[in-house]
């Protein structure tokens, strides 16, 4: 799968300009005081200097914090509803990390199963993911324990490998190949470039030092599900805030609320979190009123329940939940210390 093309880093702006003709291009940005993927401004490519990963994951490009589902108004003959004008632009996410790309493949499953979610799926359709391999993973990254890696290209259309002054371009999917074929001005790679790329990949893989053991994890979690003492002990310091779930690239719970005044308004959906005590209080009660049950749910949903339905662990090891947690609640410590039956 080694790429045949490459581009000098100083020409990234030109490349993005070309790609902006068919897509709305999103790049890592820190313009709004927190790192996230934002629409490219047509000029700035300095993210290459600071970008490791964003605090806000690119799931927001497909499943935003809040979105209007439809608007409504009451007239004499009853209620009338209207769908929002869809943001039909084709998104190109430039620089998405392999973990976050894998996370989108997990969200795809959740939003396709049973009911096909038109809001999410319409944004995903025709979008293109241009991955940028990680040469400088965080100490909180643990993707390699989950079948991924800093250069895992399975879930992107194109993968870029930083070999110093240049980016080597690996075409992964047909859509990626077509885009690269259409892009004029790319240079041919040399054997030396390929060797360098191989080296970069290997050394980056070894930089991911945080590990979990996923062998038999489903069974282990099943076995300790009723172990209240264990879950109580590990959940004590959790504050029940929504940071871990909101920043998680694979969490997809949402709440639905109306915003209305007099006879018109709109129905919105916005992120919800199983960490909240009032989660699902609206239809009835939260079956997980105690904190240890909520903490257990977050861990088990990702590592035990989701794999039952979809055969994949719903965690990609991006480490956001660890980096951003105000009390440093570390899921890897819990997973590595699950009680084994005596």
């Amino acid at each position: 799968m080694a790429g045949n093309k490459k581009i000098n880093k100083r020409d990234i702006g030109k490349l993005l300009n070309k790609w902006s003709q068919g897509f709305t291009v999103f790049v890592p940005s820190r313009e709004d005081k927190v790192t996230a993927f934002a629409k490219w401004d047509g000029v700035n490519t300095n993210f290459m200097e600071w970008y490791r990963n964003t605090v806000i994951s690119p799931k927001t490009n497909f499943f935003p914090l809040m979105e209007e589902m439809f608007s409504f108004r009451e007239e004499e003959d009853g209620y009338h509803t209207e769908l929002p004008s869809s943001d039909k632009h084709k998104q190109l996410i430039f620089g998405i990390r392999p973990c976050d790309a894998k996370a989108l493949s997990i969200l795809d499953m959740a939003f396709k199963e049973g009911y096909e979610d038109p809001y999410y799926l319409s944004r995903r359709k025709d979008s293109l993911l241009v991955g940028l391999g990680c040469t400088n993973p965080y100490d909180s990254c643990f993707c390699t324990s989950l079948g991924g890696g800093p250069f895992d290209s399975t879930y992107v259309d194109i993968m870029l490998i930083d070999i110093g002054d240049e980016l080597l371009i690996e075409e992964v999917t047909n859509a990626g190949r077509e885009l690269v074929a259409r892009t004029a001005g790319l240079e041919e790679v040399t054997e030396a470039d390929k060797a360098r790329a191989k080296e970069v990949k290997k050394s980056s893989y070894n930089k991911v030092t945080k590990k979990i053991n996923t062998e038999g994890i489903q069974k282990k979690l099943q076995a300790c599900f009723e172990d209240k003492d264990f879950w109580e002990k590990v959940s004590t310091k959790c504050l029940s805030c929504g940071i871990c779930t909101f920043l998680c690239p694979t969490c997809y719970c949402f709440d639905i609320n109306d915003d209305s005044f007099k006879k018109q308004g709109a129905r919105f959906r916005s992120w919800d979190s199983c960490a909240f005590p009032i989660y699902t209080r609206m239809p009835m009660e939260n079956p997980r009123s105690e904190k240890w049950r909520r903490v257990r749910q977050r861990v088990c949903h990702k590592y035990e329940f989701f794999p039952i339905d979809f055969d994949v662990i719903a965690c990609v090891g991006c480490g956001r939940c660890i980096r951003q947690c105000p009390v440093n609640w570390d899921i890897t410590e819990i997973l590595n210390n699950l009680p084994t039956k005596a």
Partner: protein
Amino acid sequence: MEQKLRQEAKALLEQGRVDYIIGYEKGSLKFTTTPLIIKDKNDVDRLVVNPFIVNNLSVFLTEIRGRIGIVAKGCDSRSIISLIQDNKVSREDVVIIGVPCSGIIDLCKVERLVGEERDELDDVTREGDKVVIVVDGRKREFPIEKVLFDNCLGCKFPTPQEYDVLLGEATSPVSEMTASRARIAELEGMSSQERWNFWKGEFNRCIRCYACRNVCPACFCERCFVEETEPQWVSPIPKWQDNLMFQMTRNIHVAGRCTDCGECERACPMNIPLRSMARKMYEIVEELFSYEAGLDEAAPPLLTAYEAVEAEDLIR
């Protein structure tokens, strides 16, 4: 200090004076610490005291049942006193292990100062009034004020105001208050329209994770107004107007309880400068009522008391 803490904690557990010890242990990431809640005396060696003990542990007091030995810095001790004033905690149920504090290091400031992220730093140590940061094997020194949290700068009460044990000599403020309220002064210098636009931009980012509320020891309502549905005071849809209303109401609710510990701002994943708002409210309370939170456990909670010399004619 650490050795003394471990001895004290061990003795408290051994003598059965407390059921739990709440303190700090080494965190899972470089330089960080994390809350440690233990009941086994064999765990006391995990306790640490260092310039990275960020959390205000008193937030756990309203949740954990039993008698508790708690490690507290100056601001944390005031939160405990405030909880005692509000009848949320009984003085006899807590053993306050006071840490004379000389400021906590804000790792985000360290990152900005040297242009490298936390996990890329080789070492960060405090040496008196200096911080020594080692990056790529190169040692760099800065005045400690450059890396302390804003609320630590000019802190009037670095030594715990109430304690059963004090783990060292009382400390004095590390700097003038001016540095601590630099951003507030900047906001005060704006026209009201500029300020409105500023906060609009800030609260546009809010994702309503409620970390600011959950990390706050003064936010102890069993059911927060923001979650009420009948009537619905604030919409759960995270639009900036409602996000701002939520935070402003929260600030009014904790007026007279907020000790300026800065946890709301530290916890915010969206970098909203929440302490600017909280600190301003703190100053308004001080100006109007000559009151600072958590200094006297016998005093009635501010907004439950009335005095004939109140500043406002309205209630006189």
